[in-house]
């Protein structure tokens, strides 16, 4: 699986989100992603991760062995920089 494919799936599931995905072993099954979305506003970490997992659907069960997630609202992202 390509990082780009994961990025596109997350973007489809969370329209307007800023998504960066990196294949950190180069093996096509361990990824890390940064997802910045307004839809995370007022939600806890569990709910935010579930929203991203939801966008990935069955790929998360089968093709992605591991996905390290950073999830932020646009506000949190700005304050971080």
């Amino acid at each position, binding site marked *: 699986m390509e990082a780009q494919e994961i990025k596109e799936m997350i973007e489809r599931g969370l329209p307007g989100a800023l998504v960066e995905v990196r294949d950190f072993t180069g093996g096509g099954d361990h990824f890390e992603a940064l997802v910045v979305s307004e839809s995370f506003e007022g939600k806890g*970490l*569990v709910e935010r*991760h*579930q929203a991203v*997992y939801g966008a990935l659907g069955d790929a998360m*069960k089968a093709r992605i062995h591991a*996905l*390290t*997630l950073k999830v932020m609202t646009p506000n949190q992202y700005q304050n971080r920089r």
Partner: protein
Amino acid sequence: MADPIERIRTAINSDKIVIFMKGNRSFPQCGFSAATVEVFEELGAPYSTIDVLADQEVRDAVKTYSNWPTIPQVFINGKFVGGCDIVRELHSSGELQTLVRAALGESAHQ
């Protein structure tokens, strides 16, 4: 044997901190499970672990139970707290210590 969801419910309500992981605390079989256990070791908090590699039914059922597709999974006071990323994030922000202290504190009053 009881239904796997029932077994999960029993497990997460038997101890204050329960970690569903691959392997056990001495021999974690996955880097994310190892990192999660490491956090609780650092906190010095008592926790119990369930090896999902030894029980395929529980491995599948816990994912359904918490609507969470990956292992490890951490439950504190019977409530799903998150996987490896969340536990590490809560640890660095100090929120995990608060959660753990509250959970263990309650047991002291019982």
